[in-house]
């Protein structure tokens, strides 16, 4: 079990993340017991086996690498209770677009989890983009990080957390 932030609270979590090591392929890798987040390539190669092995106690989810878009998951969203967005480095911002698209374009209602190089100072931005679970990098303190969700109370833009930009609410 690890501690993650979910819906602005620190909770115990049992999901593991399957990452292909060098030499391993999506077609041949041993599928671990759920709850597990698998790479997109594994999902596409082994979908039926993964779904057959999954259960409410051992669910399966998918993680998107930076550069992988939600387009490739569009037909599968109803089968996934968790989709993770991987940040290989915290300065790689592709995951923000992926999360927004999942929510705003594809209407995904399940959990979107940030994994990888996830740091407290980016939580505010990630949350605005529709990410609602955060597996902080192991050396970071999740309890201390909670305060950073409220860094800015009323930002200007429309985003997932507030679909109306400030200018449409300002005059009221």
């Amino acid at each position, binding site marked *: 079990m690890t501690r993650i932030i979910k819906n602005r609270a620190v909770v115990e979590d049992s999901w593991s993340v399957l990452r292909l090591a060098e030499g391993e392929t999506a077609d041949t890798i041993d599928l671990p017991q759920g709850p597990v987040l698998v790479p997109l390539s594994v999902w596409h190669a082994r979908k039926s086996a993964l779904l057959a092995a999954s259960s409410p106690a051992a669910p399966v989810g998918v993680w998107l690498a930076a550069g992988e878009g939600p387009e490739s998951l569009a037909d599968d969203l109803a089968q996934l209770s968790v989709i993770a967005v991987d940040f290989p480095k915290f300065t790689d911002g592709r995951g923000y677009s992926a999360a927004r698209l999942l929510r705003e374009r594809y209407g995904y209602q399940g959990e979107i989890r940030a994994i990888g190089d996830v*740091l407290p*100072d980016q939580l505010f931005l*990630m949350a605005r983009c529709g990410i609602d679970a955060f597996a902080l990098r192991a050396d970071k303190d999740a309890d201390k990080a909670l305060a950073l969700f409220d*860094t800015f109370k009323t*930002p200007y833009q*429309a985003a997932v957390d507030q679909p109306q*930009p400030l*200018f449409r609410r300002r005059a009221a």
Partner: protein
Amino acid sequence: MYRYDNYDHALVQERVAQFRDQVRRWKAGELSDEEFRPLRLQNGLYIQRHAPMFRVAVPYGMLSSTQLRRLAKIARDYDKGYGHFTTRHNLQFNWIPLERVPDALAELAEVEMHAIQTSGNCIRNVTTDQFAGVAADEILDPRPLCELLRQWSTFHPEFAFLPRKFKIAVNGALEDRALTWFHDIGLHIRKNEAGEVGFRVIVGGGLGRTPIRGQVVREFLPWQDILTYNEAILRVYNRYGRRDNAYKARIKILVQALGVEKFAEQVEAEWAHLKSGPATITQAEYDRVAAFFNPPAYAQLPAIDDGFVQAQAEQPAFARWVERNVRPHRVPGYAAVTLSLKKPGTAPGDVSDVQMDRVADLADRYSFGEVRVTHEQNLVLADVRQDELQALWQDAKAAALATPNIGLITDMICCPGGDFCDLANAKSIPIANAIQAKFEDLDYLYDIGDIELNISGCMNSCGHHHVGHIGVLGVDKGNEEWYQITLGGRQGNNAHLGKVIGPSFPADEVASVVEKLIRVYLDNRHEDELFIDTLDRLGVEPFKDKVYGDRLKGKKAA
């Protein structure tokens, strides 16, 4: 100009608190240097040669006298008493200890200023024409739309970690005075056949290591759609721009790789989902913001003031200043005045705390309390009565702000260079000063006439050398500072890049080389022909022959 309401105030105050906390955690070891780096950069803080360089945003170049006095105070209380205006309207301080930056930010927040996104791989300060609102050739005042873009880009949650920095420039007049062809996004305000206002959208321009002129992605975009359209452009860039090589990460590289048609298709496909969404600008919001830029209470004045005309006839020095530093205004009896920050012997764009206070006084006395920063690193008082120009000139002279050289060779664009900047390959300020010294004689300077000379201390091109009629670029050659010369670049509607004329020169030869280039012009010009026109007519060969002389005879340039 725009004034903050409670929402705007809260955001900059929250920013101060955020950064104060980040500095505290960095000092406590909770944030590593690497983790802190992008956070400080997005507050304009670079670690430089001497101390952190701190870059304050001047959104689309507008400053109130109150804000300018605060910048003067910060220069005095936190720095060594001066600052440097950049080609993107911002003000840089050079000597503020990092620990004191949160306090400086708090002082800025009190006067509706900040350093948000003045560096880092995010959307930077939006720039525009320094004569916005007063230019005779204006289609629409770009500043309300610039303010809307400022708000949209501030803490944009999706675009804080782009592949690379992202710069937007907006021009609202017939003549481009905002270098829009060389920005990541350049916007031209225009009217369509039905008389509706919109933008020509140019994407993928930029200077730097790989200078490229931008390309038109859309000829006409209704103004209401600018935020959603920008969002589509930025999303395509954020998702598909290169991240494997910082030198190939700007949007211009993506546009080149895809081709502009394919890039435009992707943007339009993305925009199809966003168009008409909540981020579409409402008329009510436009009106709210535009009201801040309503014309000031101009007096009813004759088009030509007799006393002003007479003073020019009687005082040649005043007439000279008027000729170079004063521009016509769309309102009868008014003029726009450029205060030169290019006094020979000083660093171009530098301004002391005393001068900032003096400019604030002049703005209050003569120009409705407002000042603009130009991308040529000067200051503008945009609304001065003709009958007060003489008094303004005398006051400006007393503050060393009336050098009558706007548009002349000594009014050069110049980055801080190797004296301050850690990125620089070579110094630029001593080169600027050496060139200025060659052209100190005013009759000589005036005889040469309009010319643009731009100096960058490295290929990052902060000094816009690519688009100078004469460009000077500092290069590192075996740990020595050498300088490459380009000719024929230009800004404006026909903006394009200059061409390198040949091998570079050591520092002590650059001013003489420039003098030789000018000599070729003076010897060959037709009557009333400007430097750039003579260059276009003759081509670069006679200029090359003059500066390289025997060095290149009989052998081809490497």
